[in-house]
C-alpha cells in the first residue's frame, strides 16, 4: 500500500472532530441508541392504543386474535431471531476484519429477513381472503361486535405493517453495507456502520418479540 493510501484509510477511521477512534465509535453508538429511543416512542403510541382498546374489549380482542395463525407467527418469530444471530455474527466478523464473512452474513441476514416478509405477506393474504381486513367487506365469523373486532385488526395491520416497513428499510441499509463491505470499507479500526445497523436490526427484532404474544396469543386457551 502506498503511503497516501494508508493516510486516507486513517483519515476515514477517525474524523477530525473526534480525538480518538473510541470516542468516535461511542458517539455513533449513542446517536443510534437515541434514534432507537425515538422509535420506542413511535411504536409506543401504537402499543398504548392497543393497551387501551384491549382493556376495553378483552373478549372480542381474544376472539379476533385467535383467528390469526399462531403457528406461522411462532415460526416467523424464530425466523427473525435467526436473522438477529446472523446479524450479530456479521458485526462479530467486522470486529475481526473478515471481509468475506461480513458480506456473507449480511446477505444471510437479508435473506432470512426476506423469508420473514414472505411469511408475513402470506398471512396478510390469508386475512384478505377471509375478509378480516377492516373496511366495508369486513366480517369476523361468529362475532357479535364487528366494530370492536375491526379495531383489533386495524391495530394488527398498523403494527405489523409498520414493523414490516422497518424490515424493508433494514434490508435496504444492509444492501448498502454489504456492497461497502465487499469493497473493503470496513476494518477492525472502523466498522461503526455495521455495528449501528446491527443495533437497528436487533431493535426491529425486539419490537416483533412484543408484537407476537400481544397480537397472536391472546386467550388461546379458550374453546373455539
Amino acid at each position: 500500500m502506498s503511503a497516501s493510501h494508508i493516510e486516507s484509510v486513517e483519515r476515514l477511521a477517525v474524523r477530525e472532530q473526534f480525538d480518538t477512534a473510541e470516542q468516535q465509535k461511542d458517539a455513533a453508538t449513542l446517536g443510534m441508541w437515541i434514534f432507537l429511543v425515538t422509535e420506542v416512542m413511535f411504536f409506543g403510541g401504537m402499543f398504548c392504543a392497543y393497551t387501551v382498546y384491549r382493556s376495553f374489549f378483552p373478549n372480542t380482542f381474544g376472539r379476533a386474535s385467535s383467528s390469526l395463525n399462531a403457528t406461522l407467527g411462532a415460526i416467523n418469530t424464530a425466523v427473525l431471531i435467526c436473522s438477529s444471530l446472523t446479524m450479530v455474527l456479521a458485526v462479530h466478523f467486522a470486529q475481526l476484519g473478515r471481509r468475506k464473512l461480513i458480506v456473507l452474513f449480511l446477505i444471510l441476514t437479508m435473506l432470512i429477513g426476506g423469508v420473514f416478509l414472505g411469511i408475513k405477506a402470506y398471512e396478510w393474504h390469508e386475512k384478505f381472503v377471509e375478509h378480516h381486513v377492516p373496511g366495508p367487506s369486513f366480517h369476523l365469523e361468529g362475532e357479535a361486535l364487528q366494530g370492536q373486532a375491526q379495531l383489533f385488526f386495524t391495530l394488527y395491520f398498523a403494527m405489523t405493517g409498520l414493523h414490516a416497513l422497518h424490515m424493508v428499510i433494514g434490508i435496504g441499509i444492509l444492501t448498502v453495507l454489504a456492497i461497502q463491505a465487499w469493497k473493503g470499507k470496513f476494518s477492525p479500526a472502523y466498522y461503526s456502520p455495521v455495528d449501528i445497523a446491527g443495533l437497528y436490526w436487533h431493535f426491529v427484532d425486539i419490537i416483533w418479540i412484543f408484537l407476537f404474544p400481544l397480537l397472536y396469543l391472546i386467550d388461546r386457551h379458550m374453546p373455539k
Partner: protein
Amino acid sequence: MPEHIDARKTYYYVFAALIALTAVTTAVAYVDLGPFSVVVAITIAVVKMLLVALFFMHMRYGTALMKVVVLGGLLWLGILLLLSMADFVTRGWLPVPGK
C-alpha cells in the same frame, strides 16, 4: 467503549435461549392462567428483550450515558402507558356535567 469481542459460543447460547423462550411463550398461551396469561407473556417478552439488548446489542459493554438514555426512553414509555391507562380506566368514575 473499549473493544469487546465476544466468543461466538456466547451468541449461540443466547440464540438457543431466545428460541426456547419463543416455544415456551407459544405453549403457555394454550394453558388457562386466567389474568396471569398476559403477565407471563409480557415477562417472557421482557426477558427476551434483555437477552437481545445485553448480548446482541452489546448493551452490557455500553457506557453509563448509553444506559441512562435507554432507561430514560423506557421510563417515558412507562409514563405514556401508565398515564394513558389512568385516564381511560377512570373516565366513567366521576359525573362530568355536560358529558
